[in-house]
């Protein structure tokens, strides 16, 4: 009860304080003579936002870049040692390879399945469509740790001869084979793909919702025109619908890619990076909170930031092109 009252008071206090702040800023800028007022006002009004961003975004980012050139306790500079150590260690190279695998496979498959489900759900009756979409979207509502817990029970392995708790192994043993150690199959990185399934399971709903809205937004006239011109269903889909929903596909692709680059909880909960499943996000967590090595952790994050920049540039350019085309 106390917590609810506290929460309400915080919200009221926060909103009220923001209102008072802007009213004050307005009054202060009103004290300046005419032309100055017009010049100063924009800076004043974005002052709270800039302060918040610099305190919580710019300052930590700069601090992290500095720490990546310092030692594990952040007490002395070490130059590029952290980067050298990371990039030359076979473990980290394997981690980078795994992360790359995730980045290549998961966004593409998410869009693929999202599109298929969106198109198929579109053809159901409205009632069936709603139910199908809700069911597919549901996994997004649970945390990655929750998803990991669910899938632990699907991949669980008990020694042969023991009753199997895991769903996959129950099926396999009922078909007459020995139980398989799913999460330890690492020669062809099969276990990484099994972990990717978990993330797909959660993200396909998100892709489906956005793509479904985009598909429904395609003007019917273009589809009719294509049919009149003699295109079959598949050509309509690939040549008419998809080009028109391109902005949405790109948005979903970029969002899922950034999510995949940061993937941590799924891998941590399932294997903690053992059996060649380690990814960059998990390694960062272990460097910072298990090894207490600030230098390595900061270097990993900086490498991740550098890797994300091209994607962000691409995204911003797309956005600007869209704005100009409007």
């Amino acid at each position, binding site marked *: 009860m106390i917590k609810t009252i506290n929460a309400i008071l915080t919200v009221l206090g926060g909103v009220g304080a923001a209102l008072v702040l802007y009213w004050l800023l307005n009054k202060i800028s009103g004290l300046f003579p005419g032309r100055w007022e017009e010049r100063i006002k924009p*800076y004043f009004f974005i002052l709270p936002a800039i302060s918040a961003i610099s305190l919580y975004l710019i*300052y930590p980012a700069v601090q992290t870049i*500095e720490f990546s050139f310092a030692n594990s*306790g952040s007490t002395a500079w070490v130059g590029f040692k952290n980067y050298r150590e990371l990039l030359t260690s076979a473990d980290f190279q394997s981690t980078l390879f795994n992360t790359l695998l995730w980045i290549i496979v998961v966004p593409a498959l998410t869009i693929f399945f999202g599109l298929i489900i969106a198109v198929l759900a579109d053809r159901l009756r409205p009632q069936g469509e709603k139910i199908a979409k809700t069911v597919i979207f549901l996994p997004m509502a649970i945390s990655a740790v929750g998803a990991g817990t669910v899938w632990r029970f699907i991949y669980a392995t*008990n020694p042969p001869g023991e009753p199997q708790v895991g769903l996959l192994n129950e099926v396999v043993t009922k078909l007459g084979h020995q139980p398989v150690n799913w999460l330890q199959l*690492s020669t062809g990185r099969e276990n990484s793909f099994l972990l990717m399934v978990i993330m797909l399971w959660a993200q396909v709903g998100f892709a489906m919702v956005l793509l479904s809205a985009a598909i429904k937004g395609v003007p019917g006239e273009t589809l009719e025109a294509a049919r009149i011109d003699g295109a079959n269903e598949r050509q309509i889909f690939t040549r008419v619908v998809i080009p028109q929903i391109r902005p949405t596909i790109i948005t979903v692709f970029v969002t899922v890619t950034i999510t995949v680059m940061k993937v941590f909880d799924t891998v*941590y909960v399932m294997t903690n990076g053992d059996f060649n499943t380690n990814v960059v996000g998990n390694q960062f967590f272990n460097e910072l909170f*298990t*090894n207490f090595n600030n230098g390595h952790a900061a270097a990993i994050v900086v490498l991740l930031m550098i890797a994300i920049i091209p994607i962000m540039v691409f995204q911003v350019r797309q956005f600007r092109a869209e704005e100009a085309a409007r």
Partner: protein
Amino acid sequence: MRRSLALVKPALVKATLVKLTFVRAVFGKAVAVTTVVVLLTSGCLVQSGGIAGGGNSNTSKTIEIMLGFTGDQFDAFKATVEPYAKSQGIKIKWAATANFNQLINTRIQGRNLPDIAMFPQPGILKGLAAKNQLAPLDDVLDLPALKSSMTAGTLDAGTVNGKLYGLLVSMNVKSLIFYPKPAFANAGYAVPKTIPELLTLTDKIRSSGKTPWCLGIESAAATGWPATDWFEDLILHEQGTTRYNAWVNHQIKFDSPEVKQAAAIFSQIAFTPGNVVGGRKSIASDNYNTAANPMFKSPPGCFMYKQGNFVAAPGGFPDNVISDIDNKVGVFGFPPATANGEDPVLGGGDMAALFSPHDEAAKKILRYMSTKNFGASDARLGNYISPHKDFDQSNYPNNVVRDAANVAYKATSFAFDGSDQMPGVVGSGSFWKDMTAWISGQMSEDQALKRIDASWPSGS
């Protein structure tokens, strides 16, 4: 109306675009200025020794106790301490967390120290004591009385530079081997008294067509720790306490004859075909809580399971076994290397340390935690073992717990779990992971030992 709107629209759009560009320019300039300011002011690194010296200066009767365990264990512990605290007029704020190691560092860096903290691992406690963050307990507790009451070696675990900083409050015993009592007796097996006898028994059971061992090291993100316990027990019993401590401090490396001998014994037990339920390939996916389940089938799927006393409680062995545990389960201590040498015991536990040297209330609570019958009500619930040899053993709920506790009380010395004492990057990192990789066949023994050595932080 429509026509005028059509005329106004482009003008409006153009005005908005101009404003947007203007705002963007202003925004961009502001961000640039801020970044430069931030760069200039954040150029300094953390000063070494910048962490506030001297701990907590609290002197009031309201104290905060920070613990590394949650759930039932926490509730039981709270119920043990609260009545005494109330009788002394002391108010306790409890801070229980499952991620103690991460949180304690954050709190120290944020200068937000508790008054008492129960450390699950001595490594961090020793580091803090060396930095003068903790108060020595030599003047707070009655050391001579403790020395005679507590199991030999339990005080050493919390001693740094000759002074006591960590008081062992609860103890778990790890050098234990559980066995199915009725089946053992029926087959006529005797409890082995030395390691060679243990290996002979293993061979005997295997050659009669049965599987001697259950072994499982899976534990989600912590997979591999039971394997490290096996190594620690083997090194401790084969080499003795002094050389064990030298190994824990990295004076004896992992790539050394002592450790390789332990690895050879472990390989013989775990990798010989027919020795372990499910064979070598299922060890890394067999969860340590349920790995012993085959033991309770009839006929038993295995005859021995090495694990700490905590599996003999709800959540570990099956419930129907726990309810009749004295008839179904027996336990003996991991045997010594020879009959007349050292008989040490490996274990762990929570150590209480004091951050507030001037707080009488905190000192009173610590003194209470050091009394010989502390934890009696907790013990009756089944997962608490007292480190005091003169603890009233009728508080233990069954013979299995009592026998486990006596393995520790009768041992020649108590050695704290090695991986809990090593630096985090090894003890919670490479030791776990490389052992798991070796056991599941992804790495050779040589590679694994060399990698663990290489991961040891230099000059930490």
